[in-house]
């Protein structure tokens, strides 16, 4: 068979992404039709930059999700097909089996794996880890930043000192110190996970408790249910048979997170949370001087109610914008980890690892490194444009 021409490759890739295009069109039509009823999200569709950013982000989100169900991929991302080593985009397979996709659309890498399918699978890893890690970092940052900003004093000095301590570390050095196999063996990342992952539980517990304190009949069952479920999830997340932290017996353990992923997750949360802490602290210090906070204090509301139900909702604008930017930054950090071969397995199809694999032969074969590089660029760019659009629209209020 002849290799595909560039036009053929583009057409085939376009067709391969069909489920993504359909989902994007449906999402955008629905959102634009109902944009007046959707609050800040709806206002996003008034700004071109925000729409472009949102489209780029959702493209990768849908790609990741469909890719996880093996819908867009053409080959197994780990399978090596003989004769396809470093082949250019559009090369046909030498003797394809029945039902096998006959071409490597974006060529083969130095181990004869399909670059296109690896790109799709890599999107899923980012879409899984980056938003979740950012969310955890926000929980940690908010739970510590609100009291630091609201109370001030000794607590503030101590927490700020700790945050600055982590911030003064060059990120890569921190990664090298935390993610090496020797350190993982001592269980330090597992202990850090144990500490860091408590914060979402504290956050939700305090949030609900301060809100429903006056309704004891509703509060007790609600807290028991929510904290029970979260506690179970927490224990199954951190406990792993055969590692240092193993508290749950196997039959109660809901899911197993591969330890490499857990370590990467923990270090990314750890690096991000001090910055979030600083932002939240600054916002809390600013907002606590407002009249509505004074009104709540006069009403006799507790400090946690004021922090979580008066200050936090009024700080949401800058926080949402920073959340988008931070997901992008987390994506970059994940790529950095992959680029230095830290944490994730060397076979993993995530973009950083693939770029690192491809760069060795970059002078001769471009496509194995260029494809994931451009994917990562477009995703982070999308998030930054989205954040920019959101900032503009939220300032317009």
């Amino acid at each position, binding site marked *: 068979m002849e290799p595909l021409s560039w036009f053929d490759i583009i057409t085939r890739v376009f067709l391969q992404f069909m489920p993504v295009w359909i989902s994007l069109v449906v999402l955008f039509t629905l959102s634009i039709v109902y944009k007046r009823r959707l609050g800040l999200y709806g206002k996003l569709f008034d700004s071109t930059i925000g729409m472009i950013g949102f489209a780029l982000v959702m493209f990768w989100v849908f790609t990741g999700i469909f890719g996880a169900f093996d819908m867009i991929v053409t080959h197994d991302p780990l399978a090596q097909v003989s004769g396809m080593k470093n082949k250019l985009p559009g090369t046909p397979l030498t003797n394809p089996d029945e039902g096998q996709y006959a071409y490597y659309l974006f060529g083969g890498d130095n181990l004869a794996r399909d670059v296109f399918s690896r790109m799709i699978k890599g999107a899923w890893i980012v879409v899984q880890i980056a938003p979740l890690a950012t969310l955890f970092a926000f929980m940690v940052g908010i739970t510590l930043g609100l009291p630091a900003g609201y109370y001030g004093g000794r607590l503030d000095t101590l927490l700020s000192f700790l945050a600055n*301590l982590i*911030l*003064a570390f060059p990120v890569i*050095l921190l990664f090298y*110190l935390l993610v090496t196999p020797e*350190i993982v063996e001592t269980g330090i990342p597992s202990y850090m996970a144990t500490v860091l992952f408590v914060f979402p539980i504290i956050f939700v517990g305090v949030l609900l408790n301060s809100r429903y304190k006056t309704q004891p009949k509703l509060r007790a069952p609600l807290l028991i249910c929510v904290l029970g479920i979260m506690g179970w999830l927490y224990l199954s997340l951190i406990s792993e048979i055969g590692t240092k932290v193993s508290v749950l017996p196997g039959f109660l353990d809901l899911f197993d997170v591969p330890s490499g992923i857990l370590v990467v997750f923990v270090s990314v949360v750890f690096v991000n949370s001090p910055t979030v802490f600083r932002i939240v602290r600054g916002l809390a210090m600013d907002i606590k001087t407002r009249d509505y906070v004074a009104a709540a204090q006069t009403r006799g509301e507790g400090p946690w109610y004021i922090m979580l139900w008066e200050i936090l909702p009024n700080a949401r604008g800058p926080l949402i914008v920073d959340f988008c930017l931070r997901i992008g930054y987390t994506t970059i950090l994940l790529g950095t980890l992959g680029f230095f071969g830290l944490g994730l397995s060397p076979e993993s199809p995530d973009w950083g690892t693939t770029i690192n694999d491809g760069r060795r032969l970059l002078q001769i074969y*471009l496509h194995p490194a*260029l494809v994931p590089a451009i994917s990562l660029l477009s995703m982070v760019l999308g998030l930054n444009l989205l954040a920019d659009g959101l900032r503009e629209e939220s300032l317009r209020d």
Partner: protein
Amino acid sequence: MGLFILRRVGVMILTGLCLTFLVFTLTNLYPNLEKLAKTQGNFRMSDEEVSSYLERNGYLQPMVVKYGEWLGVLPSYRHENTDGTIQGRCILPGKTPEESPDFCGVLQGYWGFSTVFKDEVGSIIGTRLSLTGKLMFWVMVLMVPSALILGVLSGMKEGSKTDRTLSTVAITTTATPEYVSGVILIAVFASSTVGLKWFKGTATSAMESANFENFFLPVLTISLYGMGYIARMTRASMAEVMTAQYIRTARLKGVSFPNIVVKHALRNALIAPFTVIMLQFPWLLNGVVIVETLFNYKGFGWTLVQAASNNDIELLLGVSVVSVFVVLVTQLISDIGYVYLNPRISVT
């Protein structure tokens, strides 16, 4: 002002001590030491041999004591071998124990010995740091003026077409980490198959003689990522200054637009970017590590990767101390500079 600087320096020293102790603890954990013993001795050492090796070299003392010795505030460990000879960290080959000093740590200028490069850590860091200094110098020369020009041009008339275009450029560069822009730049400008072949894809030869051909790509790669951020800060600060009363007064007096920008707005608009540029240093350090690995330029960042991936404990400690020091000093300078440049802020 004096008290303010004194307090900042105090906090800085405290931070430095905490951080170095943290790094020291993490690098001196038992699995790391075991690996060190096996690479120094042989890989088939039994557990007893490992612990006797570690005992001989003083690695089994409490962490705080080891840290004190490394820092040079506690007398260093000496071990008496079975044949009566005395060995210790301070006793260099060819010296007798009596001649050697009791204290040998970072404070005395002794940084230890690198197991990978087989050389004194102090001299390795010196040479590597000067190579990275050359890289950083050119990065600054390229990055700071272009970022400021970009920011001032787009902040001059907020919302104009120039502003939109330049802002998009700035956003794109901040969204491109070094390992992505480096790969794309090599593909476009240096690849031997399809690219333009204007530059070289490695900077190894730039260590001896840097020229435009072998040094421009790494410099550009680092500059691009930092540039967008500084440009956006400059833009925001410029846009704010342009709405100020005195700018309106100047316009109404009939001062020409270029004159307003250069003489009235620029000086006030550059206060914020100054701190940002200083705070950019820690990020540049990250960029340096990535770019030096990507372009195979054997500077400070490359040394960090080598030390960390080969478990070279004393070199890694030295590298950490230097990088933490750089970060803290730039923070101090940016704080002092901010107060100095902005008369509205008082330290008291």
